[in-house]
């Protein structure tokens, strides 16, 4: 029996220790996790991988789409189970967790060595989030400003002015946007404005609204909660009124997808343009101006190589190819690049048959130049959950906005001060 006990314990320890990563010779299959299952996106990735295979016949790359909602949890679980990807997209929100934990391989050496890569062309604003101790741990392959997609047919049906006209007249502000959205809902029964992917859970997408009031989730150093600041209270009060009084936005638990024609406007990033069909007329305009004037909000995504990968060298080399100037220009049609030389409306227009140069200039080029990056923090998942739970009481009619926001700070202060 004692021998049996020793056997069980050693089995347990063996399982606990896991296996060390060792480079393997021979053909290599790299797995790269992405959160887009969009066919157009995947075709582009596969084309780039096929081109890479021509010069590196031993290396093939498999793109593994994981649903956006559970993306970070899924890859973390895979990593913990010793089954992590070789390369992974990383959301800006969890960037500090990945970059600071040492989960990723530094990229500078490989990128600098790659012919024609020109790492200096990548803006410092874009790489800031992905650096630790002055080393780059993920490449900011997407710096995507939020814009407003507009269903022009639906607005016309509700007798509303087109947002493009309002932009031209300098009248495209949140009051006007909410008023148009409310009118659509009242006259057509369709939803007015939808903050895409927010769904009363993914609250960080609301940064695309509250930044117009000059509000932010926490201070620059991440140590002080600013949900209870007057700017945030004003922004959330306006949002609450738009949802529950004016019905300009669909309430919680109501599904309304812009791209199937169910809502008049949606705030999202240009990578979603690939979801547009020809079933209705559409336009893309910048975010409305807020009480603090014109503003832009940027969502970032990085691409990194996991240290636990068995093929870190091959993976880093593929990353350098995937994000080189030529491929960066191709990816630019969905994922705006962080390369200065490619950030011109004319340049972007080449890869973006769907969007007009004027739209690209006002939303993408200007947006990236002035944009505030969505909130990020170490311990992102826990913080995000605490805010989500504390904000829930706000999403009902008659909520006391100030009290709820004070509650958010009470909930997250201990976490921020860690």
């Amino acid at each position, binding site marked *: 029996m004692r021998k049996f006990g020793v056997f*069980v*314990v050693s*089995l*347990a320890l063996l*399982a*606990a220790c*896991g296996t060390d990563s060792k480079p393997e010779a021979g053909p290599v299959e790299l797995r790269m996790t992405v959160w887009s299952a969009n066919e157009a996106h995947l075709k582009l990735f596969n084309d780039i991988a096929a081109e890479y295979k021509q010069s590196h016949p031993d290396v093939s790359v498999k793109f593994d789409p994981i649903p956006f909602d559970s993306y970070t*949890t899924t890859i*973390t*679980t895979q*990593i*913990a189970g010793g089954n992590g990807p070789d390369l992974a997209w990383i959301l800006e929100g969890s960037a500090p*967790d*990945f970059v600071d*934990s*040492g*989960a990723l391989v530094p990229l500078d050496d490989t990128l600098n060595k790659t012919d024609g890569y020109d790492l200096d062309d990548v803006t410092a604003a874009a790489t800031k989030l992905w650096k630790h101790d002055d080393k780059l741990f993920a490449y900011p392959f997407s710096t995507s400003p939020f814009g407003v997609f507009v269903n022009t047919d639906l607005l016309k049906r509700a007798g509303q002015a087109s947002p493009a006209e309002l932009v031209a007249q300098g009248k495209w502000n949140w009051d006007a946007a909410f008023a148009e959205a409310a009118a659509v809902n009242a006259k057509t029964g369709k939803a007015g404005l939808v903050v895409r992917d927010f769904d*009363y*859970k993914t609250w960080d997408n609301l940064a695309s609204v509250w930044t117009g009031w000059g509000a932010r989730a926490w201070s620059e150093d991440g140590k002080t909660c600013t949900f209870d600041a007057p700017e945030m209270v004003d922004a959330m009060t306006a949002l609450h009124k738009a949802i529950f009084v004016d019905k300009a936005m669909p*309430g*919680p*638990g*109501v*599904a309304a997808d812009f791209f199937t024609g169910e809502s008049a406007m949606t705030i999202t990033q240009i990578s979603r343009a690939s979801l547009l069909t020809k079933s209705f007329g559409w336009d893309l305009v910048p975010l409305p101006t807020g009480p603090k004037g014109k503003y832009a909000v940027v969502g970032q995504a990085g691409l990194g190589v996991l240290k*636990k990968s068995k093929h870190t060298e091959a993976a880093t080399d593929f990353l350098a190819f995937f994000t080189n100037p030529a491929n960066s220009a191709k990816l630019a049609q969905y994922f705006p690049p962080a390369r200065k030389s490619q950030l011109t409306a004319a340049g972007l227009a080449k890869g973006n048959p769907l969007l007009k140069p004027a739209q690209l200039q006002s939303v993408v080029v200007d947006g990236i130049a002035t944009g505030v990056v969505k909130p990020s923090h170490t*311990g992102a*998942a*826990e913080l995000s*959950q605490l805010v*989500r*739970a*504390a904000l*829930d*009481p706000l*999403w*009902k009619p008659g909520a006391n906005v100030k009290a709820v926001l004070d509650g958010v700070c009470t909930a997250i202060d201990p976490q921020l001060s860690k």
Partner: protein
Amino acid sequence: MTAVLDRVSQAPPVRRRGFWTARRRDHLAGYLFIAPQLAGTILFVIVPLILVVWYSVHESNPLSSESEFVGADNYRHLADDQSLSGVLAATGVFSVGLVVLNLALALLLAVLLNQRLRGTVVFRTLFFSPVVVSMVAWTIVWGFLLQDNGGVNGLLDVVGVDGPNWLRGDATAMLSVIVVQVVKNVGLNMVLFLAALQGVPRELHEAARMDGAGPWRSFRSITVPMISPTILLTSIITVVGSLQVFAQIAVLTQGGPGNSTTVLVYYLYQQAFQFHHLGYGATLSLVLFVIVLVLTTVQWQMRKRWVFHES
């Protein structure tokens, strides 16, 4: 016959010395018979259980793959975790609600469907069919039905009732999760009760009727005691099952609104896999283990008080 006896007498005598005595051979055969089951239990139950204890005294970050021994820190954290009391309360509400509603409804359905009426077979199939449906598919469909502009409120609208936003109100969200789970699994308990009911001898009811007992008295004094072993079985599996609820919470409410539906299993999943506190998650799962163990032991001990006959 003689030939057979001759052959037997000519057979070499059984070697009594050596290691493989008959007794040992029997033991070996026995062990070989249980080996597959034992291997499975060791690999998938015992080893993970030991690992959970090992994890609970470490703090590991899956991203950095660093793990450090922290002793009883995670256990001490149980005491100062401000969310834990709310989580345990939600778990209690869910379990009590589920067990009471499930057993009551299952028994009611079983009694009704035990009548010799036309169409009972159809209804038995109807109530049992959700049991075989995939849990996640079942829950996703209910997620759509329970939306503010979903099917349930659509139906209520037809009869002039303005339904609540089921999954967004604290009380209605918990109620929704319980009901979705009850409807899913009530068929299993119903079938167990039906089988038990059919085992109750008809003569007892007849004798009671002749003694002047009404249907309620006869149900209370004959049916319930006669099926009490099944009530014990169903209550144990339902209590244990209710403490392990996960998919419904993950799909329908993600623990919200607020933390009103964050039950223990969902909370430990959040801690371990979303917040990267594997050690604390493991500690919470040991808490769950102890709760299940205690509740099951209590139920098992209490059976002597109320379970009628045990063979």
